C-alpha cells in the first residue's frame, strides 16, 4: 500500500489535520475581528471531511490492517466518524457567533478539529496503543476547550475537574491496558487479543485479568460518564462553554463507546458474563441516579448533563445484552443522542448568548427561570428545545423514540426483564424533568415581552440537529440498516 492510497484511505483525518494546521497558521495573520473567517473555514473542512466519508461508503466498506494493523475502516468506524464530524460541524457552526471577535478563535477551532481527529482515530483503531493515543488526543483537546473561557471561574472549574478526573482515568485505563498487554504475552492488536483470550479464557479470569477489566471499565466509564465515574460530568457540562458541553456530551462520550465496543466486546469477549454483570449493575445505577438527580436540577445545562448520564446508562445496556440487535439499537442510540444532545446544548447556548447580549451581567443564563415564556419570546428556539427534550424523553417521531424502541426491544428479547423494567421506569421518570422545561417555556409567563432573535449561525446549527433528530425519527430505515451493518462488525 503506497502513501497515496494510504492518504486516500485517511483523507478525512488528513483533511482535518491540514485544516487544523491551516487555521492555526492563518489565524496568525488575522485581526480578531476577522477571525470569524476561521470558523467558516473549519466548517468547510468538517463538511468536506464528512462528504468524503459518505463518498467513501458507509455501509459495506471493510478495510483491515492499515498502518501495521493499527487502524481499520469498517461500517462501525465510518458510522462513528460521521457522527463525530457532524457533531463537530454543528458545534463549530454554533461557535461562529459565540466566539465572534474572540482573540483565541484560531486555537479554538484548531482544538476542535484536533479533538475530532482524536475521536476519529479511536473510531478506527484496532490496536490498543493507537486507541489510547486517539483517546488522549481527544481528551487533551477537550480539556483545553472546557477551560476556554479563561476569565470565567465556572469554565476553569469545569476544566480542572474534567482534567483531573480525566487524567486519573487515563492512568487507570493505561494501567489496565498494560496488564492486558502483559497477560496476552505482548499483543496489542484487538483481533489478535480476541483470538488469544478466546483460546485462553483462564488468563482473563485470573486476578490480573479481573483487575485489568476493572481498570478498563473505570477508564471508559469516566468518558461514558457511568455512575460512579460520572462525577465530573455535571460540573464540567455546566461550567464549560455550552457549545463545548455539546461536544463533550455528544462527541467525546461516544468515543468511549466505540472504544469499549472494540475492547470489551471483541478483545475481552471471553469473559462476557463478567462484563455483563458489571454493566448490568452500572447501567441500572447510572440510569437511575442520572434521572433521579436530574429531577432536582434548576440549571438546564446541569440537567442535560444528568440526562446525558442517564442516557449513557441506557446505551451501556448493550454491554449486558451483547446481541446484534442490542448493538444496533445502541449504535443508533449513539447517533440519535448525538443529535439530540448537541441540539439541546446548542439551543441553550443560543439562549445564553441572547440573554447575555441583552444584559451582559446576566448570571446563570441557563437557569430554568430564564426559560419561562420562551415560547412567546422566541417561538423557534422554544419549539426546537421542545423537540430535543421530547426526543430525549423518547416521544414518537423523534430519533430518541426509534432508538429507545429498538434498544429496549432487544434488551427484552435478550431476556433481561429486570433491566428493561428499570430502563422503562427511568424513561418515564425522565419525562418529568423534560416536561418541566417545556412547561416553563410554554405555560409560564415570560419575564419580559421582548422578542429574542436567534442569530443565524445558531439557527443553522439547531436546524441541522433538528433535521437529524426528525430524520431518524421519521425515516429510520436507512439509519437502522446502517447501524446494523456497523453492529455486524463486532460479529457477535
Amino acid at each position, binding site marked *: 500500500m503506497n502513501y497515496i492510497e494510504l492518504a486516500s484511505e485517511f483523507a478525512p483525518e488528513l483533511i482535518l489535520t491540514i485544516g487544523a494546521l491551516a487555521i492555526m497558521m492563518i489565524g496568525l495573520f488575522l485581526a480578531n475581528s476577522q477571525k470569524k473567517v476561521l470558523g467558516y473555514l473549519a466548517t468547510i473542512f468538517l463538511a468536506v471531511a464528512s462528504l468524503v466519508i459518505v463518498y467513501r461508503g458507509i455501509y459495506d466498506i471493510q478495510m483491515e490492517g492499515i498502518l501495521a494493523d493499527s487502524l481499520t475502516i469498517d461500517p462501525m468506524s465510518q458510522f462513528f466518524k460521521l457522527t463525530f464530524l457532524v457533531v463537530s460541524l454543528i458545534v463549530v457552526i454554533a461557535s461562529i457567533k459565540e466566539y465572534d471577535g474572540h482573540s483565541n478563535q484560531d486555537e479554538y477551532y484548531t482544538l476542535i478539529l484536533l479533538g475530532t481527529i482524536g475521536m476519529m482515530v479511536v473510531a478506527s483503531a484496532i490496536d490498543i496503543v493507537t486507541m489510547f493515543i486517539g483517546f488522549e488526543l481527544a481528551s487533551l483537546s477537550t480539556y483545553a476547550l472546557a477551560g476556554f473561557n479563561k476569565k470565567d471561574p465556572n469554565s476553569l472549574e469545569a476544566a480542572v475537574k474534567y482534567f483531573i478526573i480525566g487524567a486519573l482515568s487515563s492512568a487507570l485505563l493505561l494501567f489496565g491496558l498494560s496488564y492486558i498487554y502483559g497477560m496476552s504475552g505482548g499483543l496489542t492488536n484487538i483481533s489478535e487479543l480476541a483470538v488469544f483470550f478466546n483460546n485462553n479464557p483462564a488468563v482473563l479470569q485470573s486476578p490480573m485479568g479481573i483487575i485489568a477489566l476493572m481498570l478498563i471499565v473505570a477508564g471508559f466509564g469516566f468518558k461514558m460518564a457511568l455512575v460512579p465515574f460520572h462525577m465530573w460530568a455535571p460540573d464540567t457540562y455546566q461550567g464549560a462553554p455550552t457549545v463545548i458541553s455539546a461536544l463533550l456530551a455528544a462527541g467525546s462520550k461516544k468515543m468511549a463507546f466505540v472504544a469499549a465496543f472494540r475492547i470489551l466486546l471483541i478483545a475481552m469477549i471471553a469473559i462476557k458474563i463478567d462484563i455483563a454483570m458489571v454493566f448490568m449493575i452500572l447501567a441500572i445505577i447510572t440510569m437511575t441516579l442520572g434521572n433521579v438527580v436530574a429531577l432536582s436540577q434548576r440549571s438546564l445545562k446541569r440537567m442535560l448533563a444528568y440526562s446525558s448520564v442517564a442516557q449513557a446508562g441506557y446505551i451501556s445496556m448493550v454491554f449486558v445484552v451483547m446481541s446484534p440487535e442490542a448493538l444496533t439499537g445502541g449504535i443508533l442510540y449513539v447517533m440519535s443522542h448525538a443529535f439530540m444532545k448537541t441540539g439541546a446544548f446548542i439551543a441553550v447556548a443560543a439562549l445564553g448568548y441572547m440573554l447575555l447580549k441583552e444584559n451582559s451581567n446576566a448570571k446563570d443564563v441557563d437557569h430554568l427561570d430564564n426559560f419561562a415564556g420562551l415560547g412567546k419570546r422566541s417561538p423557534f428556539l422554544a419549539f426546537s428545545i421542545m423537540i430535543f427534550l*421530547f426526543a430525549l424523553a423518547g*416521544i*414518537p*417521531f423523534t430519533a430518541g*423514540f426509534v432508538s429507545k*424502541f*429498538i434498544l*429496549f*426491544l432487544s434488551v*427484552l*428479547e435478550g431476556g433481561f426483564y429486570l433491566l*428493561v*423494567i428499570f430502563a*422503562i*421506569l427511568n*424513561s*418515564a*421518570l425522565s*419525562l*418529568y424533568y423534560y*416536561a*418541566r422545561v417545556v*412547561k416553563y417555556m*410554554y*405555560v409560564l409567563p415570560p419575564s419580559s415581552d421582548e422578542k429574542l432573535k436567534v442569530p443565524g449561525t445558531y439557527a443553522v446549527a439547531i436546524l441541522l440537529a433538528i433535521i437529524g433528530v426528525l430524520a431518524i425519527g421519521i425515516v*429510520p*430505515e436507512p439509519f*437502522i*440498516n446502517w447501524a*446494523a451493518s456497523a453492529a455486524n462488525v463486532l460479529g457477535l
Partner: protein
Amino acid sequence: MVDYVLSLILFIPLIGAALTLLFTKSRESARMVAFVSSAISFVLTIMIYLQFEPGIAFLGFQFEEKIGWISSMGINYQLGVDGVSMPLILLNAILCPLTIVYAWGESKLPNQFFALILVLQAGVFGVFMSLDFFLFYIFWELTLIPLYFLISIWGGPNKDYAAIKFFIYTHVASLVMVLGIFALYFSTGVNTFEIPVLLEAFSDIVSAEMRVGIFLALFFGFLVKMPTVPFHTWLPDAHVEAPTAGSVLLAGVLLKMGGYGLFRVLLPMMDSLGPYRSSIITLMAVLAVVSILYATFLALAQKDLKKMVAYSSVAHMGYVMLGAAAFNYMSVSGAMFQQFSHGLITAVLFMSVGVIQHSVHTRIIPDLGGLADRMPKLAFLMMCGFMASLGLPAMSGFIAEFMVLTGSYLTLPVYALLAMVGIVATAGYHLWAMQRAMFGSYNEKLGEPHDLANFEMIPMAILVLLIILFGVYPGSVMEMFEHASKIIPGVMI
C-alpha cells in the same frame, strides 16, 4: 380517493392544526379553520361509515392502506377499520367538531388551543386506525402531548400537578404496554409489527407463561388508560384541572383507547391463554366490579361537580371491563357500545359542568343551588345528560348497561349481580348533585349567571339528541359491534 380515505381522515386534522397554529392570527380565523378541518374529517368518516360492511371476518379490515416503513423490523404504515374501530372513529369524528364549537369563545391563545384539539383528534384517529403496533404506539403516545398542554396551559389552579401526573402516569402505563408489544414481537418470531399477524401468531407462542406475561403487560397499559381502580387516580385530577374541551375529549375519546385496546388486542388473545384463562377473567371481573362500586361511592363523596363526573367515568368504564371479562358476544358488544355511548354522555356532562364553571365561577356542589331557576336551558340539557349517565332507558347508556349486565350474567353471574348494586348509588349521586346544584332556591351569592350561549347549546343539544337516538335505535352501531364481537375467537355466542 377511497384508497387513501383513512389517511385523509387522519391527516386533515393535522394539517388543520398546522394551519391553525402557524397561519391564523385571530380567534375567529383560528376556530373557523379548526372547525372546517374537523368537519371535513367528519364528513369523510360518515362516508366510510356508510360504505362499511359489518362483520366480514375476524381481522377482516376494510379501507386498508399499507406502505412499507421500516422494513427491516417489519414496521409498516398500515391503516384499516373493522367493526370494533369504525364506531369509535365515528365517535371521535363527532365529538371533536362539537368540542370545537363548544369552545368557540376560547380567548386565551386560541390558535394554539384549537391546534392542540386537532392534534388530539388526529392522535385518537391514529390509534383507532393503526394496524401496526409501532404506529399504534406512536399515536397512543402522541395523544398525551396535546392533552398535557391543554391541561397545563388552559388548566385550573392545580394544573401543574395534574398535568404532570397525567403525563407520567399514563406514560408509564404505555411503556409497560410497549414491553408487552416487544415481547409479543420477538416471541412470535414473525418479524413484523402488524397487529393482525401478531394476533394470529399469538397462539403459536410455546410458553404459556410468556403468553400470560404479554397479555398482562398489554392489559396494564389499557387498564391505566381506561382507567380501572386502583390505577385511576390520575383521571379525577386531570379532569378537575383540565379545560372543559380537554375534559370532554379526555373522557369522551381518550379513555376509549383503553377499552379499544382491550377489544382489539386482548380479547382475541383470550382464547390462547390456556390454563390461565380463568384466572385472567376473574382478575378482570374483580377489577371491573371494584371499579364500578368503588368509583360510584367515591362519586357520591365528591363536592366538586367535575370530580364527581370524573369518577362516574371510572365507574362507567368499569362496565366496559366487565363486559370484556364476561367474554360472550352479548357482553362484549354491550361493552363496546358502552364505550361509544359513554363518549357521548360524558361529553354532555363535562360541557354542562363547564358552563356552570364559566358562568358562576364555581363547581363546588354545596356552593351552587337553584341554577335551574336562572339557567333553564342548561338545566334541561344537564338533566338529560345526568339521566343518560345514570342509565335511564331510552338513552344509549341503558342499552349498553343492559347488554353488559345481561351478557355478563351468563358467564359471571356473581359479578354481574354485584355490579348492579352500584346502579342505585349511581342514581343517588347524580340526583343528589342535581338536587343541590340545580334545584332549590337560587343562591344569590352566585351573581347573575347567563344561560347557555348558542355555541354551547348547539353541541350539547346535538349530543343529547344522539344519546336518545342511539338509546331508542342503536341500529347500525350496535350491529357493527355485534358482528365484531361474534367473530372474536373463543367468544361465547
